[in-house]
Structure formats: structure tokens, C-alpha cells
């Protein structure tokens, strides 16, 4: 039971990234014979087809790839940014820190979703815009976490002792302090992947994310809205997948937190 979320995420990964190696599975291919009339799940189409006769299972797997890509790349971006700024603020304190942290407060107060909507409607909507915008609007939480950790780890004796050995500032920060700030970062990054996937779905649902004919869970949902009654499988499948993925990632981050805490207890 505990392993279920891991298995689920692993399966989504393998299926979505492995699919491109299997010939004949094309998310954009449609069956002209079935167009206009969505088919209910059958042996041939286990999750049914949509109104253009495209296989929902194949599209879901292909959409998973895009969702995971957006989630992971944008979180890597925001984590790198957040950790760097956090280390800077925590180590140097003083005026630099005060200015940057007030800026962080302002950025945190901005409604991210609307910002993304504006940017996506100004420029041609693209998946990379989504990644960059999510990355650039979600690093502040990490900064706060890292800064707080640095402020506390700075006082620890091994840092003072390393300083007394004449070790340079960059080594002190990146080698000796960074590893001690990472436990909360790992937890928040895992959570971040889930929320980035949600943001991507919302954008695609609004037609501002992944553009057809490419599949994403969000734009599959969008397409299913007018057919909710006749073809419920079209909305249920991507909806359940989004929920399961985000839920699994949240559980994963919870496990990470517990594991990291245990480790810390052993060390100290």
C-alpha cells in the first residue's frame, strides 16, 4: 500500500517516455470512420475514443509526458533559482538580504495564475512559456526555506570551525552549508512538481497551454466539456490521471519529509 504511489509514478514515467519507441502509437492519429461519434471503451480502445476518433488511452499517455516534463523542468528551474537566492540572502544578511526578501514578499503576493494568463495571451502560447513562467513565479517559497536553514546552519560549530580553517566563502556556502539546507528543498520540490502539473492543466484547459493537435491532460478535459453527457470517459480518464498524479506526488513528498527527518535524528 505504501509503495503504491511510487509504482504509479514509475508506471506513468515508463509508459509516457517509452511510448515514443513503440511504432503505431500516435496521439494525433485519428480514425476517420469513428470521427464525429465518440466510442465507448471497448477491447480495441480500452478508454474509448474522442469525437475525432482518437484513442483516449494513447492520448492520455502522451499527455502524461508533457505534464511531467512541464512539472519537472519548471521545478528544476525554480529550485535552482530559489536555492541560489536563499543562500545569498542567508549568508550575507544585512541590506542585500532585506531588499531581496521584500522583493520576495511582493512576488509572493502576485496572483501567479493571472500573470501566466497575461503572458500566454501576449505571446504565442507555447509549452516552454508555461515552463519558464511557472519556474519564474514559484521560486520564492524555496528561497525562504533555504534562507532560514542557512541562518541556522551558519551558527553551527562546524561552520565556525571551517571558517577558522581559512576556507573560502564560496566553499563554505556551497560545500559546507548547501547540503544542510536541502531536506526542506527536496520536500517542497516534490510538492512543486504536483502543483506545476495542476497549473499546466488549468492553462491547457483554458486553451493557453499545450496546443492541439498535441495532447495534454488539460486540453483533453477542455475537449470533453461539450460531450460530458454522451462520452463521460473523455473527461473521467484525464481527470482521474491528474488527481492520481498530484496525489501520488504529495504522498511522495510526505514520505520524503519523514525519511529526511529520521536521518537528521540519527545524525545529531
Amino acid at each position, binding site marked *: 500500500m505504501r509503495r503504491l504511489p511510487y509504482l504509479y509514478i514509475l508506471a506513468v514515467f515508463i509508459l509516457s517516455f517509452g511510448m515514443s519507441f513503440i511504432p503505431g502509437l500516435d496521439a494525433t492519429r485519428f480514425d476517420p470512420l469513428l470521427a464525429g461519434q465518440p466510442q465507448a471503451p471497448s477491447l480495441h480502445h480500452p478508454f474509448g475514443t474522442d469525437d475525432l476518433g482518437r484513442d483516449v488511452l494513447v492520448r492520455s499517455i502522451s499527455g502524461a509526458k508533457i505534464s511531467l516534463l512541464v512539472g519537472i523542468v519548471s521545478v528544476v528551474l525554480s529550485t535552482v533559482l530559489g536555492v541560489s537566492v536563499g543562500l545569498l540572502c542567508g549568508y550575507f544578511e544585512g541590506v542585500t538580504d532585506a531588499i531581496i526578501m521584500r522583493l520576495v514578499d511582493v512576488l509572493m503576493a502576485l496572483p501567479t495564475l493571472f500573470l501566466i494568463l497575461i503572458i500566454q495571451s501576449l505571446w504565442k502560447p507555447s509549452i516552454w512559456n508555461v515552463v519558464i513562467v511557472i519556474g519564474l513565479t514559484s521560486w520564492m517559497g524555496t528561497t525562504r526555506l533555504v534562507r532560514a536553514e542557512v541562518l541556522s546552519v551558519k551558527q553551527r*560549530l562546524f561552520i565556525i*570551525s571551517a571558517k*577558522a*580553517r*581559512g*576556507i*573560502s566563502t564560496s566553499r563554505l556556502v556551497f*560545500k559546507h552549508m548547501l547540503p544542510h539546507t536541502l531536506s526542506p528543498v527536496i520536500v517542497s520540490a516534490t510538492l512543486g512538481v504536483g502543483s506545476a502539473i495542476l497549473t499546466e492543466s488549468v492553462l491547457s484547459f483554458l486553451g493557453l497551454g499545450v496546443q492541439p493537435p498535441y495532447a495534454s491532460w488539460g486540453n483533453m478535459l477542455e475537449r470533453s466539456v461539450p460531450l460530458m453527457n454522451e462520452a463521460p470517459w473523455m473527461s473521467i480518464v484525464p481527470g482521474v490521471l491528474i488527481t492520481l498524479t498530484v496525489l501520488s506526488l504529495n504522498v511522495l513528498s510526505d514520505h520524503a519529509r519523514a525519511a529526511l527527518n529520521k536521518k537528521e535524528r540519527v*545524525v545529531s
Partner: protein
Amino acid sequence: MSLKVENLSVSFSSGGHTVTAVDHISFEIPDKTIVGLVGESGSGKSVTAMSVMQLLPPQAVLSGSILWKGQNIMGLSNTQLRSIRGSEMGLIFQNPLAALNPVFSVGNQMIETIVLHQNVSTARARDIAIELLQKVQIPDAALRLDHYPHQFSLGMCQRLMIAITLSMRPKLLIADEPTASLDVTVQAQILTLLNDLKEELDMSILLISHDLGVIAQNCDEMLVMYLGKLIEKGKPSELFKHPMHPYTQALIAAIPSPFSKRSEVTHVLKGDIPSPLHLPSGCRFHPRCPKAFALCSEKEPRLEPVCGREVACFLATEATSNSR
């Protein structure tokens, strides 16, 4: 070539209060000597040690001067300090386990230090590290190098810290209660090791301790601190035989002796060390001093030379001026 501290004061301010942890102290550490610094917890011993290395947090306000080889190191930039830290002055702590980064192996931290200070390749640094571990008597040195700090006992950790510090060949070693958390037998080993290494490397040592036995056995000169002030300094042999300041007398009387009976309770000072937020008027020791008289609460005694040492007590200075 020595350390000369003149009129050093260190204060911390927080929430509108200013606490003076070290108040106008002056002392010298000549070459190849061991100077002992004693006092109760909170007397400012560690703050003194940290200010000599300029390692106090930025909130600390320092004044006075710290001359190292004639150069005032107070207010030097971080880069300038880095050339002094380690290669000129080394620091070891009371809690050696906490002084090593738990996420890196001991070898990693030693090699890092050796590469930095001796300008050698990593492979050569590893050999030097193994030699040093053997010198501080850690068995299976080559194997132990890859172990993490928590896999060592406290005594071993302290020897590791000494080995790391010695790899930088400092001219002055500041040992902040190096044996306080160790067993007596291990304590003896560490002190012997420090003495041997001092001879071998021509170091001077500032030995901080609250253990008067340790100080008496190892030091050439002894400084007694109370609430941030130096109150007596001189040769340990003389101070032990004939302590002049009532506080030094009390410290020496408090050493438990195996020959006294259990009923003969050793002299215990009344009260606690006062809060540095509300310092007593006059002599800081007067509320606890068994020999205090009216003048003590009014005027602060200065550290004055008395028979080959320095004491800050009216009784001591009076006694000598009367006998003159």
C-alpha cells in the same frame, strides 16, 4: 612574533540591551608559551578566543586592538583574515564532534584543509592526512580517513580536530576547553599530545579551561577572568600557592581533594555569577566576595602589578602598599 591583546572589549546588543561580554582586557602570548585562561561559564573566555580569530557574529561590537606579529587584525577584511586563519592561528573546540561537518567524511575535510594550506595535490594531501592521523595515534589511519565524524568517539574526534588544525601548521593554537567533554584518561592523552606538538612545532597555545588542574599543569602563565574582566594574572605556581584575589582563592579552594573528608565541604561561593545585563557596581565580584568591604561596591579596582603579578583587588594592593 606574538599575540598582544590590548584593551579588548566585546559587546553584544539585542532588543535594546547591551551586554558587555569582555571588558577592557589586555594580555600577551609570547612565542612558545602556553597561556591559560580560567573562569566560570559566562566569564567571557570563549568570546575572547573567538575575537582573537575574528569569528564573532556581525552583531558583536569589538573595540581595542589585537596585534598579531605587530599587525592589528581588528577590522581586517575577510580575505585578509583568511590568510591568518588556519595558517597562523588554529582553533579547537570543547565539542569536537560538532566542529566537524557531519555530511562529509573526516578525510574529505582533512584533505580540503591540507590542499588549501600546503598547496599539494589531493593524493599527496591524503598521504599527509594519514601521517597526521598516525601522529595523533588513531589506529588504522588509512581506513579511518573515510569514516564520518559520528563514527568516532569524542576523544578521537578531538584528536582528529587537533590533526586537522596541525595540518595548517599554525603558530598559535587556541584551545577552547579542549578536554572539557572527555574522560580524565583521554584528557591526559590530549594534553600530553598538545604539549608534545607544541615542542615539535614551536607553537604558542592559549589554553582555555575551567579546570584549574589542567591549567596549573600545562601553562607558563595564567589569566583569571570574572564577568568579562581580567582579575588576576601571573605564574600558575605562584597563583596556586598564594592566590591574591578572593575569586582566585575561591576557585582554588573549590578544587575537590581526595584527602579531605566528605564532611569538610569545600568552600563554595555563595550565589550565582550575576547577569551581565545588570552588572554590580564597583568590583564585579563584591556581591559574592567573602572579604568585601564598603569601598568594593563603590569603586572598581584596576588590574595593578603586585609582587610580580597583576591583581584587581583593593585588598591585595592595600596589603602591599601597607607593607612598603
